[in-house]
């Protein structure tokens, strides 16, 4: 089912603004990521869609129907909570069956549906265990199975992988994507981890300080950020600031073309580490720096280069590239960069 959020504003009792005129539409069967730093309002937005919190103004539509006056019990929304919120006094099977019992389905039907979900979430062996006997990843799967059991029209996941260690988290999020594709339920998940958002979401809604910064596909978010915040927050980035002069922006030894900007403008430049290439020094006019740190990243190095004026620049070097060492002098080519004036791209 589609979800439409229109001009949602949420202010708290102390007048702080949690959400400021948020609007977006999620198409049926899509998987959407809410991405933002902590305190950006993404969880509040999720809770408003679930009906657990009431917006100050604005409207929420689920499959075209306004749901603002419908309590969470009747919205047909499945929620996976950040700390799972499993029922501690019930077994895994009883946790999953809870929503079905509320719906007063018959015993046979409940039994079959629980078995089906245990199978889907690879939890059949854990059916009679209690939540305290489960690992984080297992508990997360129970929470998902429980939310899916009553066949919700919309699935909401609040920081679903935050409390799980890295390796399991990776498996789990791919698996969540698979489950989503299998069931086709419209889903939204909240995360502060950009890698997570870019990897599994169809579209990503970037939120900062209660405002939507950008809503787009992972590629758009990464390659064509529409604000300085998005460029800086999503992906690794070198961030510099300077003033334009004669169609150029000169920051220390860097000189970047800024043809369309009049002189004397303050500009922000964001350069992805992948858009900076290292090579041997060949001419006097090269941008030259000294490698001060090499961090091993598995199949590449993250290289920190100190330029002549003391500025630090980050770039990647493939593992099989020429031997690198700290203290080494290197030339840098800047292949691509993004310019912003204020928050707006130029």
């Amino acid at each position: 089912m589609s979800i439409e959020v229109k001009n949602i504003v949420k202010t708290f009792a102390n007048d702080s603004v949690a959400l400021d005129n948020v609007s977006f539409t999620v198409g049926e069967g899509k998987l959407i990521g809410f991405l933002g730093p902590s305190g950006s309002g993404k969880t509040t937005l999720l809770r408003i869609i679930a009906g657990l919190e009431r917006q100050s103004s604005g409207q929420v539509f689920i499959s075209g129907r306004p749901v603002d006056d419908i309590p969470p019990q009747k919205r047909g929304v499945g929620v996976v909570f950040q700390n799972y919120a499993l029922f501690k006094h019930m077994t895994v099977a009883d946790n999953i069956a809870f929503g079905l019992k509320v719906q007063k389905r018959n015993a046979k039907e409940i039994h079959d549906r629980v078995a089906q979900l245990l199978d889907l979430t690879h939890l059949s062996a854990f059916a009679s265990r209690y939540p305290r006997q489960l690992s984080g990843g297992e508990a997360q799967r129970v929470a998902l199975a429980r939310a899916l059991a009553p066949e919700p029209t919309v699935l909401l996941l609040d920081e679903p992988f935050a409390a799980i260690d890295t390796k399991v988290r990776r498996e789990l999020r791919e698996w969540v994507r698979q489950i989503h594709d299998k069931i086709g339920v419209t889903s939204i998940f909240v995360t502060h981890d950009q890698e997570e958002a870019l990897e599994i979401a169809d579209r990503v809604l970037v939120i900062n300080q209660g405002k939507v910064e950008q809503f787009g596909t992972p590629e758009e978010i990464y390659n064509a950020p529409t604000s300085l915040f998005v460029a800086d927050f999503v992906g690794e980035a070198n961030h510099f600031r300077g003033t334009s002069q004669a169609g150029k922006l000169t920051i220390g030894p860097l000189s970047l073309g800024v043809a369309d900007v009049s002189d004397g403008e303050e500009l922000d430049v964001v350069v992805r580490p992948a858009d900076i290439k290292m090579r041997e020094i060949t001419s006097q006019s090269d941008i030259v720096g000294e490698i001060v740190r090499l961090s091993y990243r598995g199949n590449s190095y993250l290289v920190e280069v100190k330029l002549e004026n003391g500025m630090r620049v980050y770039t990647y070097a493939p593992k099989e590239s020429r031997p690198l060492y700290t203290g080494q002098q290197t030339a840098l080519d800047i292949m691509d960069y993004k310019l912003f004036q204020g928050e707006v791209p130029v």
Partner: protein
Amino acid sequence: MKSKIGLFSFVYLWFLALIALPLTGIAVGAFRKGAMEFFHEFVQPGALFGLKLTFEITACAVAINTVFGVLIALQIAGKNVRGWRVLNVIVDLPFAVSPVIAGLALILVYGPNTLIGGFLQNHSMKLMFAMPGMVMATLFVTLPFVVRELVPVLREMGNGEQEAAMTLGASTWRVFWRITLPQMKWSLLYGAMLTVSRALGEFGAVLVVSGSVVLLTQSATLYVYQSTVNGDMQAAYTVSLVLAATSFLILCLLEGIKRRREVAHS
């Protein structure tokens, strides 16, 4: 080592002097003229009536304070009413105020010569110097027990499971019975048992609001006091022993509940 033994002996001596000896004294006193005499005193109309009244008052107080204790605890823990902090302080008031003063306060508001009390009396409802007043006094004195047991449990539980149940379609009522209550039941029972033992032994507040009329408003503790004043020590010992034995039984129950609760929370 020596000082340790010294300390231990002191503690035991203290315990002996303060608790063990007086309790033994009551048991010995009750049976010093034999079991027949004990039974004889036990079946005295005043004694039987007092015990019956005490148990009735206790039953009422526990039932009412369990329900209201749960409601108040939910409000304080959920922080969803304005002024929950004030409520939180008021709940402890009965611990701070002497029961006699509590009783007096009730008389001042609901006594026969007051606005509310007079009105009720005109509609043939007598609160003070009758059982309803005694229940009220006991309610006041025992208010904190259930609340104080539940608030920390509810706080620890948080909102997560309740919200999860709601999104699964459960009504508020169902959430309470299926999620909240099962998780706090041992603490609730513990609080209720504390209420029982306190209600059984209540004296001051009940004395003020009852007038201690024989065979009418004289509860067990009042009967014990009256008997002592009258020099009828056998009667006093007998009823005291029954009350003490009941409390001991409750103590054993509490111990069992405590263990269950620890298991449930680990």
